[in-house]
C-alpha cells in the first residue's frame, strides 16, 4: 500500500454552478425535525446531508456515522447578496472598472505594461502583491480626476463611487444593488480580471456576489440532544434557519409584486443574515444573537483565534497513547529513565510484530492479559482485525495465545526499557520534550531524576507531566538517537550543560570533597554499595578522604584545572597552593586539590567538569557520572547531614552593634542630605532636577549602607554554617539573601523608586506628609531574623507585589514574542551545502552562523578548543 501524499493545495472561490453541482439537496424549508423527531426532507438536517446519529446510514453515500464525511446542500437566494468577506474587494473592482464598457480603467499601454510586470512578479508572491496594489491604485486614479475623468476605452465620464461599510455601494448618489454590481462584474474580461488580482479560472469577479449559498453538511454542525430529549441545534443551523425564512419571505413578496420599499427592506435583511452567517464580528454590523442573548459563533469565529479550528485543531492535535499525572522525584532512576506507574503502563501499549524470535515471549504476554503487568491488551490478526484480550477469560486468552503466528501484531504493555517521550508545559524549548526509558514502578506518579528538572523547569509542588509512546520502530529509533536525555545535556542555547546537579547535590559534593572530610573503610564500602556503584575498593586503605571517594567516579585519564565557586578571588592566586579549597586540580582522574561545587557540575551554569566529561568522553560518560554522583551524594548527606536553622543567620552582639552603627550612619547621612535640600544647598546633577538628585543620592547612600552591613555580616558568617555553604557553592541562594536574613533588608522599591505612594504625599499614615526620611520611604532596617516592624512589613509587601505583577505580565508578553519568533523562523533549516534556507529556497545564510558550527557541540560558542589541542599535543612529548 502506498501512501497518498498531498502535493499542493489550490484555493479558489465556488461559482454558483459549482455550488449547485456539489449540492445534494436544495434546502427550502427552515424546519429541522418533524413531530416524530425525524428529519424533514429538504429541511436543514435533510438525511442526504450526512449522518449524525449512530446506527443510521447516509442517504447519499451509504456510509455510517463517523465514516460519512457529510455532503453539502444549497439555498437558492431570491436576490443576490454581497459576500461580506469580499466587500472591500468588490469596491476595489468597481473603482477600477468602467461602468459602461466594463474595461479596466487603464489605457492600452498601461495594460500591456502591467500585464508584463505581473507575469514577471509571479515567481515571488510578495512582489506580485506589490504590483497588484499599484495596478489597483492606478486604475482607480482616473475617477478622482476633476477634469478628464473619462474612461480611456469608451470615453464615458466616470462617476465617483463610494463604499459605505459594511455592504453598501453608492455611485454618485445612486445606491448600487448587488444585482447591478453582479451584472457589471459579469462583463469583465478574463484579462482584465487578472489585472485586478483575480485568477479567472477559479475566481470570476461576479462570484463575489452570492446567488446560491452553500449549506454546510450536518456533520459540521451537529445538533446535540439534551437530557430532556429536546434537541439543541448548532449556531450555524440557527443562522441558516434565519436565512431561509427571510429568503422565502423575500421571494413571496417579489412574486406577489410587493412595493419596492418592502422588497428592499427584506433584501437588506437577507444581506444581514448572510453577512453574519459568514462572520458575526464585522464592524458596523450588530452581531446576531441567540434567543438567550448569547452571540452566535458563525463561520469566521470557528476558524479564528486561539480556540479556532486552525490553532486548536489543525496546528495542534489530540493524540492517543499518552498519559498525564503528577511527578515526583526519585534519585534512584537514571537521568535517562522515567518511572511509569504500573496502572499507566498497563493502559499504554506498544505494537509488536510476532516473529519467530518474539513469538514465545509475546504468547506469554497474551496469556497474562490486560490486567497483569507485563501483559498485552490487543492482538491484531494478519487481516488487520483487532481483538481485545479478555481480562477474565483465561480459556479465551489461551486460544488467542495459541492462535498467535508470525505476522500478527500484539499490543503489549509498556515495559522497562521502552522509549517514551516526556513533556512538561510550557514547552518553551526543545528540551521540554525528551525521550526517556521506561521503568515501571508501583503507585501512581511519574518518577524522574532531579538532574533533569532544570530543562523541564519542573518542581514537585504538584506539577504534572505528559508522556507519549512512539508507536513505530522508526519513531522509537529517532527518539532514542535524537531526543534521549543524555544527548541533551549540553544546551543548544549556550553550549553549556542544562542537565546537572541541583541544590543538595552541589552542597553535598562540597561536603564530600572539602579538606578534612574522612570516611572509614566501612563507611566507604557502605556508601558505594548502597549507592549501587560497583567500584573496586579492595585497596588496603582504612581511612579515605572525601576527595579519594569522589575520584572513584572519574575516568582515569581526566585532567582538569579550574577555579571553583568558593574561590575568594585573591589578588594573587596561589593556584595549586590555595588554602581555601578554591582551586581544583584533577590529574589522571584523581581529585588532588580543591572542593567540588557548583563550578563542577551545576545545571544551567558554566560547569568545567561535566562539560569536559560530556564533550571529551561522550554523553554516556556524562550520564553515568551524573547518575552515580547523585546517588553517592545522597549517602554522603545521609552520613554527614545537612540542615538549616535559625542559628545560621544569628550574629553575635559585636557584629550586630557594628551593623547598627553602619545603618545609623547611613540614615544620618540621609537626614543631612534632606537638610541640605531644604536649605537649598544641594547641587543638582547635570540634567536632573533637585528632587531627582536628592532621590538618587539618598538611594546611593542607603545602598552603600546596606552593602556595608552585608559585608560585616559576611565576615561573621563562616563556612561552618550550612546556609553559607549553600550560598557559596552555588547550591541555592546567594550571600545577599543571607545578609538580608542576618543583617538588613535594605531599600524596598517600586519601579526603581523609593516607596512614596499610598496616602496623600506620604507612604503610610505613620509618617508626616512629604517626609523624605529613609524610614518613611521604604527603607527596611531590620533583618528577617530580627523581624520587621509593622511599617517595614508593609513596605516589604509593596516591593514584593511589584515582583508578582511583573512576572504575570512578563509571561504573557514573552509568550507572544516567542510565538512570533517561532512562526517566523520555523521553516529555516540547514541544507546539505550547509547554507541556511527557508522553505522557498531563499538563502538566509551562506554558512550557518558564519562557520557552520552547531552551538550544542561547540566549545562555549567557539568552533574548536585550539588551546586544549595544542596543550594535549605538547604534553604528549
Amino acid at each position, binding site marked *: 500500500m502506498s501512501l497518498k501524499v498531498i502535493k499542493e493545495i489550490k484555493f479558489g472561490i465556488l461559482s454558483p454552478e459549482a455550488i449547485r453541482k456539489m449540492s445534494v439537496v436544495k434546502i427550502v424549508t427552515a424546519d429541522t425535525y418533524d413531530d416524530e423527531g425525524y428529519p424533514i426532507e429538504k429541511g436543514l438536517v435533510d438525511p442526504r446531508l450526512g449522518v449524525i446519529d449512530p446506527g443510521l446510514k447516509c442517504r447519499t453515500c451509504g456510509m455510517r456515522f463517523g465514516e460519512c464525511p457529510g455532503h453539502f446542500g444549497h439555498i437558492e437566494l431570491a436576490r443576490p447578496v454581497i459576500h461580506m468577506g469580499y466587500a472591500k474587494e468588490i469596491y476595489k473592482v468597481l473603482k477600477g472598472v468602467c461602468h459602461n464598457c466594463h474595461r479596466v480603467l487603464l489605457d492600452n499601454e498601461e495594460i500591456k505594461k502591467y500585464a508584463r510586470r505581473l507575469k514577471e512578479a509571479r515567481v515571488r508572491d510578495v512582489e506580485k502583491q506589490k504590483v497588484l496594489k499599484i495596478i489597483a491604485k492606478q486604475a482607480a486614479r482616473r475617477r478622482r480626476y476633476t477634469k478628464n475623468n473619462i474612461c480611456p476605452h469608451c470615453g464615458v465620464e466616470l462617476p465617483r463611487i463610494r463604499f459605505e461599510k459594511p455592504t453598501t455601494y453608492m455611485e454618485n448618489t445612486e445606491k448600487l444593488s448587488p444585482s447591478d454590481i453582479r451584472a457589471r462584474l459579469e462583463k469583465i474580461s478574463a484579462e482584465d480580471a487578472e489585472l485586478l488580482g483575480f485568477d479567472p479560472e477559479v475566481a470570476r469577479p461576479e462570484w*463575489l456576489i452570492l446567488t446560491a449559498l452553500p449549506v454546510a453538511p450536518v456533520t459540521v454542525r451537529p445538533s446535540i440532544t439534551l437530557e430532556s430529549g429536546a434537541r439543541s441545534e448548532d449556531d450555524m443551523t440557527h443562522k441558516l434557519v434565519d436565512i431561509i425564512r427571510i429568503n422565502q419571505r423575500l421571494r413571496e413578496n417579489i412574486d406577489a409584486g410587493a412595493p419596492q420599499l418592502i422588497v428592499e427592506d427584506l433584501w437588506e435583511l437577507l444581506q444581514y443574515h448572510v453577512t453574519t452567517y459568514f462572520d458575526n464580528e464585522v464592524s458596523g454590523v450588530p452581531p446576531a444573537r441567540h434567543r438567550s442573548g448569547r452571540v452566535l459563533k458563525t463561520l469566521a469565529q470557528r476558524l479564528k483565534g486561539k480556540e479556532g479550528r486552525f490553532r486548536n485543531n489543525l496546528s495542534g492535535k489530540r493524540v492517543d497513547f499518552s498519559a498525564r499525572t503528577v511527578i515526583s522525584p526519585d534519585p534512584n532512576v537514571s537521568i535517562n529513565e522515567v518511572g511509569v506507574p504500573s496502572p499507566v503502563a498497563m493502559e499504554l501499549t506498544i505494537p509488536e510484530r510476532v516473529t519467530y524470535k518474539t513469538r514465545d515471549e509475546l504468547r506469554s504476554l497474551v496469556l497474562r492479559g490486560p490486567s497483569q503487568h507485563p501483559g498485552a491488551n490487543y492482538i491484531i490478526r494478519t487481516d488487520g482485525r483487532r481483538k481485545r484480550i479478555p481480562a477474565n477469560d483465561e480459556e479465551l486468552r489461551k486460544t488467542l495465545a495459541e492462535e498467535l503466528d508470525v505476522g500478527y501484531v500484539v499490543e503489549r504493555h509498556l515495559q522497562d526499557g521502552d522509549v517514551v517521550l516526556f513533556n512538561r508545559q510550557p514547552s518553551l524549548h526543545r528540551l521540554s520534550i525528551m525521550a526517556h526509558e521506561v521503568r515501571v514502578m508501583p503507585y501512581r506518579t511519574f518518577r524522574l531524576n532531579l538532574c533533569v528538572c532544570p530543562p523541564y523547569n519542573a518542581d514537585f509542588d504538584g506539577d504534572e507531566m505528559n508522556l507519549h509512546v512512539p508507536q513505530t520502530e522508526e519513531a522509537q529509533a529517532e527518539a532514542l538517537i535524537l531526543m534521549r536525555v543524555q544527548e541533551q545535556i549540553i544546551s543548544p*542555547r*549556550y553550549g553549556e550543560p542544562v542537565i546537572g546537579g541541583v541544590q543538595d547535590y552541589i552542597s553535598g559534593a562540597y561536603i564530600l570533597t572539602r579538606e578534612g572530610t574522612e570516611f572509614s573503610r566501612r563507611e566507604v564500602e557502605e556508601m558505594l554499595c548502597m549507592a549501587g556503584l560497583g567500584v573496586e575498593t579492595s585497596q588496603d586503605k582504612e581511612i579515605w578522604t572525601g576527595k579519594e571517594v569522589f575520584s572513584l567516579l572519574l575516568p582515569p585519564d581526566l585532567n582538569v584545572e579550574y577555579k571553583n565557586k568558593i574561590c575568594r578571588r585573591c589578588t594573587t592566586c596561589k593556584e595549586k597552593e590555595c588554602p581555601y579549597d578554591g582551586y581544583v586540580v584533577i590529574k589522571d582522574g584523581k581529585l588532588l586539590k580543591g572542593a567540588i561545587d557548583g563550578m563542577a557540575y551545576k545545571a544551567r551554569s558554566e560547569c568545567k567538569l561535566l562539560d569536559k566529561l560530556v564533550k571529551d568522553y561522550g554523553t554516556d560518560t556524562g550520564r553515568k557520572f551524573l547518575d552515580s554522583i547523585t546517588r553517592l551524594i545522597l549517602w554522603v548527606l545521609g552520613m554527614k547531614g545537612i540542615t538549616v536553622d535559625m542559628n545560621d543567620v544569628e550574629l553575635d552582639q559585636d557584629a550586630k552593634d557594628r551593623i547598627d552603627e553602619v545603618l545609623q550612619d547611613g540614615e544620618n547621612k540621609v537626614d543631612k542630605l534632606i537638610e541640605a535640600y531644604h536649605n537649598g544647598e544641594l547641587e543638582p546633577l547635570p*540634567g536632573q532636577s533637585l528632587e531627582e538628585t536628592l532621590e538618587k543620592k539618598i538611594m546611593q547612600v542607603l545602598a552603600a549602607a546596606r552593602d556595608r552591613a552585608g559585608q560585616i555580616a559576611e565576615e561573621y558568617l563562616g563556612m561552618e554554617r550550612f546556609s553559607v555553604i549553600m550560598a557559596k557553592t552555588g547550591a541555592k541562594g546567594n550571600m545577599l539573601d543571607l545578609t538580608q536574613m542576618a543583617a538588613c533588608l535594605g531599600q524596598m522599591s517600586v519601579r526603581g523608586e523609593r516607596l512614596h505612594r499610598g496616602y496623600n504625599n506620604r507612604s503610610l499614615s505613620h509618617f508626616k506628609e512629604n517626609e523624605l526620611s529613609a524610614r518613611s520611604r521604604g527603607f527596611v532596617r531590620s533583618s528577617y531574623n530580627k523581624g520587621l516592624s509593622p511599617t517595614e512589613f508593609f513596605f516589604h509587601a509593596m516591593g514584593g507585589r511589584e515582583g508578582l505583577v511583573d512576572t504575570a505580565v512578563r509571561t504573557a508578553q514573552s509568550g507572544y514574542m516567542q510565538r512570533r519568533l517561532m512562526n*517566523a523562523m*520555523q521553516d529555516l533549516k*540547514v541544507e546539505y551545502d550547509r547554507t541556511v534556507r527557508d*522553505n522557498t529556497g531563499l538563502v538566509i545564510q551562506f554558512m550557518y552562523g558564519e562557520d557552520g558550527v552547531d552551538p550544542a557541540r561547540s566549545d562555549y560558542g567557539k*568552533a574548536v578548543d585550539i*588551546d586544549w589541542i595544542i596543550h594535549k599535543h605538547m604534553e604528549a612529548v
Partner: protein
Amino acid sequence: MKPLPLSVKEELTEKLLEANKKRNMTVSQIDAIIQEVVEEYNRVLVDPGEPVGTVAAQSIGEPGTQMTLSTFHYAGVAEINVTLGLPRIIEIVDMRRKPSTPVMTVFLEDGYSNDREKALRVARLIEGTTVENVARSVIMDVINMNLVVTLDEYKLDDQKISIDDIIKKLKKVKNVEMTQDGYTIILNPGDVSLMKLRKFAMRVRNTQLKGIKKIKRALIRKENGEYVIYTEGSKLTDVFKLEGVDTTRTTTNDVREIHKVLGIEAARNAIIKEIKETLDEQGLDVEVRHIMLLADLMTVDGEPKPIGRHGISGEKSSILARAAFEVTTRHLLEAGKQGMVDSLNGVTENVIIGQPIPVGTGTVELVMKR
C-alpha cells in the same frame, strides 16, 4: 572534509606561533595539531536538515520569561535612561519606526577624544538647545497680550549663548516687536487672539538656538581612556557632519536609522549587537549564532522587516501557515480570490494536513537494508 573557515584558521595560526615561541615544535607535531583541529571542526559542524530556525527562536524566546519587565534602567551613563529587558527585545524584533529611547554613542577622532575641553565643545554642538532650555520662564501676559521670556544667566553662560543670538533667532520665528531689559525679553505679537498667543508662545519656547534638533541632551564620559559623548535622541546624519566626530565608530541604538544612513549590513550588525547587549545586561547567555540567524532573516530583503504579521510571518509563501498565525479569514479569502497555490513545503502546512514536516529527519526518507 570541510576546510577550516577563516576565523578558525587565523586563530590556529596565531596560537601555533605563540606556542612555538614558548617551546619549539616539530613539523610533525604541528601537522598533527592541524590535523586534529580539522577533524574536530568537522565533528562539530551542524547536521544538514537541522531546524536551526526553530532552535534559534526557542533560544531567544525561552529566556524571555526570565527577563525583567521594568522598562527603564540606567545603563552606560547613569543620567540617560535606556529601555532594557524584554521590552527592548520586543522593540528590536518589531522594528519599530522609532525606539522609545533613542541613544547615540558618539566617538571622537584623535585630538578630540582625549581633550576634555574639545570633547565638551563637540557635545555642545550636538546638544539641541531651545529657548525653553535656557529660559527661567516663558510667561504669557494676557493683559497686555505679550510674551515675557526671562532668561537664566547661568544656563546661558553654560551653553555659551548670548542674548543677541536669541533675539536674532526669535526674529526669524516671527518678526514682532521686542523689548529687551537685562535678561528679560518682551515680545509683542500685536493684536492677536488668545489662541494665537498660546501658539506663538509654544513656537517661541521650541525655537532652536543651536545644536541638533531632536537631541535633548549630550553628555561626555571618559571610557577606556577616551572621551565619548552619549546623547539622548538620535540623528546620525547631522552628527556625522560635525568636525571631530569619528564616523567609523559613532553609532546609535536606532536600527532603522542605521539602515537608512549606513546600509543593510550595518543594520544587521546593529540588530545583533543590540539584542546581544540587552541579553548580556540581564545576565542571560545566548549563543550569537541564534541572534545572527534572526538578524539575517530580518534583513534578507535589503530592508529590515519586523517579525510578526506585518513582516516575515505576513509574507510567508504558505497560505495555511499565514492563516494559522494571525488574521485567519483575510488570508483565506485573499487566497481564494487570487487562486493561490500552497505548495506545502513548510512546517505548519504539513502539520495541518497531517504529513511529515520537511525539517530534521523529515528531509530524508528512510531506506531499510534488506
